[in-house]
């Protein structure tokens, strides 16, 4: 790597360096290099979400949702719950991972804030990496 490229790489969110760390580490995974293109795409996407989730607070609902969606687990017999009443915020609920289980708008917004900030950081990070490779 030359110096310019090094300079181009930077953590977009210095407050949460673990996100970048997780992501780059999973990017440098050996199996990624040998996989075909399609699998690599999905693997990188999963890595992106996983790094987001892993670097976030463990209390976040979206973190749990993302991690559980990424990792196959034994399905547990859970008591059937009534879904929260349908309202105008359903679109948002569907977008935020784990949001459909959240009934309260207040909590939903909290999750949204966290999720959006994480996602934005992730996008910036990936953008930086892609730019540095392009140059």
């Amino acid at each position, binding site marked *: 790597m030359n110096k310019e490229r090094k300079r181009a*790489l930077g*953590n977009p969110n210095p407050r*949460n360096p673990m996100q970048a760390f997780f992501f780059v580490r999973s990017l440098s995974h050996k199996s990624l290099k040998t996989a075909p293109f399609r699998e690599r795409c999905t693997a990188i996407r999963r890595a*992106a979400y996983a790094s987001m989730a892993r670097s976030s607070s463990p209390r976040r609902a979206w973190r749990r949702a993302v991690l559980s969606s990424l990792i196959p687990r034994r399905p547990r017999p859970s008591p059937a719950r009534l879904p929260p009443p349908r309202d105008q915020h359903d679109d948002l609920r569907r*977008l935020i991972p784990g949001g459909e289980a959240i009934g309260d708008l207040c909590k939903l917004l909290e999750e949204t*804030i966290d999720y959006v900030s994480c996602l934005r950081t992730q*996008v910036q990070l990936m*953008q930086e990496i892609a730019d540095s490779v392009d140059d």
Partner: protein
Amino acid sequence: MECSAMTVLGLLRRQSVGNLAAGHRRSMVEVGSYPKLLDNCNGAFRWRIIDKLRIEWKFLSDMPMRSHFILLLSSLPPPLLSHLSSPFSAITGANKSLKRGENTATKGLLCPVLPLSLFSLFLPMEKKALFGNSDAINWQLQSSDAGELHNLSSGHLNLIWDRAIDQTAMFDSAISSHVSSPSSNPPAGSGGGGSDSVVIRELIGRLGTICNSDEISQTSSHYQSANNSCYSTPMNSPPKLNLSFVANPTHLPFPADPGFAERAARCSTFSCSVGTSHGAGQFMLPEAGKLETPASGNTKKRKATPKAKGKEASLSSSITTAANPPKMAGVEGSNGKRNKPLEEVEEKDSAEQQAAMKMEEEKGTKSAELSKDYIHVRARRGQATDSHSLAERVRREKISERMKLLQDLVPGCNKVTGKAVMLDEIINYVQSLQRQVEFLSMKLATVNPQLDFNMENFVNKNIEMQQNSGLLPPHSLYPLEAISSSFSFANMPERTPLMAINGLELENQVIPSLAHSNLSRNPLSLQSTCLDAFPNTSYQLEKLWDDDLQNVVQMGFSHNQELVFSTKAIVEGPAGTNHMKVEL
């Protein structure tokens, strides 16, 4: 035995470290917790902790800090010390010289130490005798040991008293740490207790000198408030004292200027911890009753406290000759302040309520008052005041707060008014971000085989940004109990293989010999299989570990901000620790 000594060390460290600057203190607290952890953990973890210590040493630039560190290291078990590599050779050497007392400089340190530590042992005995407590076998043993040692180092007694009078603060710390030791180490057999006490005494003595040297420059007043808060906890809840003593970091810095209240509090902590650890209720009760008075913050009781203090002053010889009522008032003031605003608010609330709802029944007002106590919302004139509408108002306020936060977060959302439109904007933004992630992952997948990443860049840039902005990331300081619980979790038999593998993996990143390898070359396959096998535990633990390491690194940088040049030199230097930082 080791464990108790280490706990004492950890506590003492925190007390003496209280004199240092805030940033420094923090890191020292972290370091202070390591030896305790070292005791609980097995091979792979020990390595990690040692590495952390190694980093810390790099960042400890000024002398008092280093001396702290040396003392800390003296508590490490010898096999571990032998593991420590180059930067530590100096420390271990210093440690040895400290132990032998060969060095002239260290000799000067050592001499006043022993008697003081002895004295700190004597005092509990005296108190015990005065309060008529007879069932504390541990203390008896220790005091008898102290007597023997005292005979050996004869002629120190006068010195002891003089110095103790001068340096009561240090004294406090020594005593309290000593007192805390039985709580952390439930009294084992009588034979073991004796040897324990000797070791602990030595350690305390050594640390004591440093407390002493730091005290001179220390005139801060806010420690007193911290002290007060810390003392109020044991008084109010004696059974929880042991836990709070270990876990609560706020109470750890001890004041340099020992006021009146402190001395009383000192006695209280002593009595409480002894009472809890030995189950001596008689001993604890009168003292606790006496000492709850300063914490209560009532003016009437304030007057009553000097009497109790006078008693204690007479008990603990001529140390407490001058009573400081204003100081007491100042210390209590913090409590009083805490209480007063609440009362005022309540009064205001009730007054407003009466104005607003004269027509309502008394029951109604009472229920509203109750709800107000918890929610703290004020109803304006003409607004509904029943509990439901109050709660609803609170919820709406919260939602609008979140909306404002989101408004700042989502670009182009500032001009939009109206919640529905804003929600639409947010949804669009989230969707676009998700699409971007997909797109970028495709893009990265096309170039991925060529990728050769170096975490150096990220972290270097990271550090630069921090230094430029002067902002430090808000560390979530992991409480001791959390870490130790993770350790206990790790020590559970069925998890051990996983932990061992995990440890190896992290070790690979951390050990300097492998530091030159890039992340791309790191063996990660092991770890990923682990993650698949035990997703929860490994995630948690790894995150904990990573964050912990992270904290250490960033702290190092944070308290070296003045020495930017030196840190940069370290970063650019080829040392192994450099790569440790960098890889995190």
